[in-house]
């Protein structure tokens, strides 16, 4: 079996480590390019959201490289992603691909279902091997998150443009190659040191902008036109509302073991504006915006794929949140044709707005 899965930011590094530690061959889709996007759009329904199109592009490129089994997450709506596993299976079968698809549905407190599907992929193995694989995967996931957080904080202070991104990429590669949690930790430590030494004084006051929105668009730089890097290079400290390890903890771990209570915080923060689950990250988008306003950030940018229902609901509520709490909010709706230039124009204007309002407050 040669296993593959869709890409989501740097998630593949941790997932690959997990599966390989269980003795499974992993064939990663190559990093997304224009070709991925073209293959995906060509074979997807036009009104489907960008994540579906990018997933299809990933699968096709991975199948070309020899993958024969695809793992995809399921879901129970209202976000359409819950259907995508099945939709994608039918699309790929329709164009004559030969593969097996495993859709992992949310266990909703029935861990045996997940474990049964996991056994289907891994075959029966010793418990100690599972524990080791999970430890390695988890250590990579949390190391990547720490690295990303630091890059977002330091990028506006880098001495010459591109230094932080260079150190970041090099460290990601080292984390990817690490064979044990200990090696992961040392790769991270070296990377953090390299980033810190690439910066001038980091104490001056820079504007802070929070990124909220749909998980795929927030986490996948190719899909969001590298919004974090661009803002960082304009001298903005970026705060991101979603990190992979938090996401896995909230949506996978806590869902498998229902004994752990899911965080109620998003609902508490969003309550004055939205008190109902609307699917995807609709509630979290509102909650994070409220949270960022209270933290005193200078602005919030919502990123959403075109036609995303949960984010459309959030988008319609954000102007009220923005007015009530006095924080500027901009929405970027992105699709396959979104040009980097158009996004850059809006980002520049938003940063100008944020700077002007900071100046006037002083």
């Amino acid at each position, binding site marked *: 079996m040669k296993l593959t899965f869709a890409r989501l930011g740097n998630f593949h590094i941790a997932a690959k480590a997990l599966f390989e530690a269980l003795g499974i061959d992993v064939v990663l889709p190559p990093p997304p390019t*224009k070709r991925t996007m073209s293959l995906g759009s060509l074979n997807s329904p036009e009104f489907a959201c960008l994540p579906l199109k990018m997933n299809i592009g990933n699968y096709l490129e991975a199948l070309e490289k020899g993958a024969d089994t695809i793992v995809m997450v399921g879901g129970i709506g209202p976000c359409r992603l819950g259907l995508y596993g099945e939709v994608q299976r039918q699309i790929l079968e329709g164009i004559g691909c030969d593969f097996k698809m495993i859709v992992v549905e949310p266990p909703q407190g029935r861990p045996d279902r997940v474990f049964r599907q996991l056994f289907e992929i891994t075959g029966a193995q010793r418990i100690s091997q599972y524990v080791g694989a999970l430890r390695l995967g988890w250590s990579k996931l949390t190391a990547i998150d720490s690295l990303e957080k630091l890059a977002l904080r330091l990028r506006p202070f880098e001495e010459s443009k591109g230094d932080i991104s260079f150190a970041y990429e090099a460290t990601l590669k080292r984390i990817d190659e690490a064979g044990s949690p200990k090696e992961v930790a040392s790769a991270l430590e070296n990377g953090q040191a390299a980033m810190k030494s690439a910066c001038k004084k980091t104490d001056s006051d820079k504007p802070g902008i929070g990124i909220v929105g749909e998980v795929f668009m927030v986490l996948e730089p190719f899909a969001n036109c590298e919004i974090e890097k661009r803002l960082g290079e304009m001298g903005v400290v970026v705060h991101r509302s979603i990190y992979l390890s938090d996401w896995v903890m909230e949506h996978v771990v806590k869902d498998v073991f229902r004994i752990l209570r899911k965080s109620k915080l998003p609902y508490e923060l969003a309550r004055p504006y939205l008190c109902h689950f609307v699917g995807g990250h609709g509630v979290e988008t509102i909650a994070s915006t409220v949270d960022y306003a209270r933290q005193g950030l200078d602005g919030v940018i919502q990123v959403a794929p075109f036609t995303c229902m949960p984010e459309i609901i959030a988008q319609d509520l954000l102007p009220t949140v923005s007015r009530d709490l006095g924080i500027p909010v901009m929405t970027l709706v992105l699709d396959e044709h979104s040009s980097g230039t158009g996004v850059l124009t809006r980002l520049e204007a938003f940063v100008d707005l944020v700077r002007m309002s900071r100046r006037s407050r002083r």
Partner: protein
Amino acid sequence: MAGSGYLGVDVGSVSTNLVLIDERGVLQEKLYLRTQGDPISAVKEGMRRLAAVAGDTEILGVGTSGSGRKLAGVILGADCIKNEITAHAVAANCRVPGVQTVIEIGGQDSKIIILRQGIVIDFAMNTVCAAGTGSFLEQQAARLGIAIDQFGKLALGAVTPVRIAGRCAVFAESDMIHKQQMGHRIEDIISGLCEALVRNYLNNVGKGKIIEPPVVFQGGVAANAGMKAAFEKELGTQVIVPEHYDVMGALGAALMAIEEKNRKDGQSAFRGFAALNRDYATRTFECKGCPNLCEIVNITMDNETIARWGSRCGRWDSL
């Protein structure tokens, strides 16, 4: 004009505008040209015309704006390269102090900018739809055989504006054709179209924004009296079209060049009027470094590379 001044250039999808202002921001010269898909020639032609009337002016600073701001900035040697949203806000606030809402409709873009106490607090730009922008109005004027500068005035002669669906340019056009075939007067159809486009603008670009007077309407489409009247009717307030509504982006760019000069107080990077006789050329090639196949643009002045951009990874950006 002798003496000294600041130059502002706005290279948009449809028009390229140039303004020359003095140190106090008073407009001295303005030019409105068609970009015609060739921004370099448009900038050169504009500068040639400007040199003819003001070639002896000492240029203290240059600002560029619009979707071609980077290219124009390299060719001219700009001190300040700013996005068109900020440029339009700066210009509107300078010409109509206290402005709270700016409606800007250009060739392919439309924007709304909300200001309070002179500070931009919110803005939006059309994303997936260009219905209601200058290009569409021009196309409809041409289809009806009416000169674009007469198009808006005709709308004012409407008696009963017909209802046209403004959601999509294609559907709006078929709606218009249908109304024509039914025998409606052309004035009523054009007026109905203006109302439809205003509704579309307010529901798309202006969605969720609190539109407070004074409202300023600028950009090429502000020349259209029918659109102005339709905005006034829909908003129930007076809409101000500033004197230089068609070059506000360039004006904003020039005003920001003054600010930049005051902040840095250095020599301008302006290459001079004479530099326009140089031979500027662009060359595009596909980078084969990875499957992204980025289209790299290489800009040369007399066969010497002066700028390069277009790569996702940035490997071609440094010369």
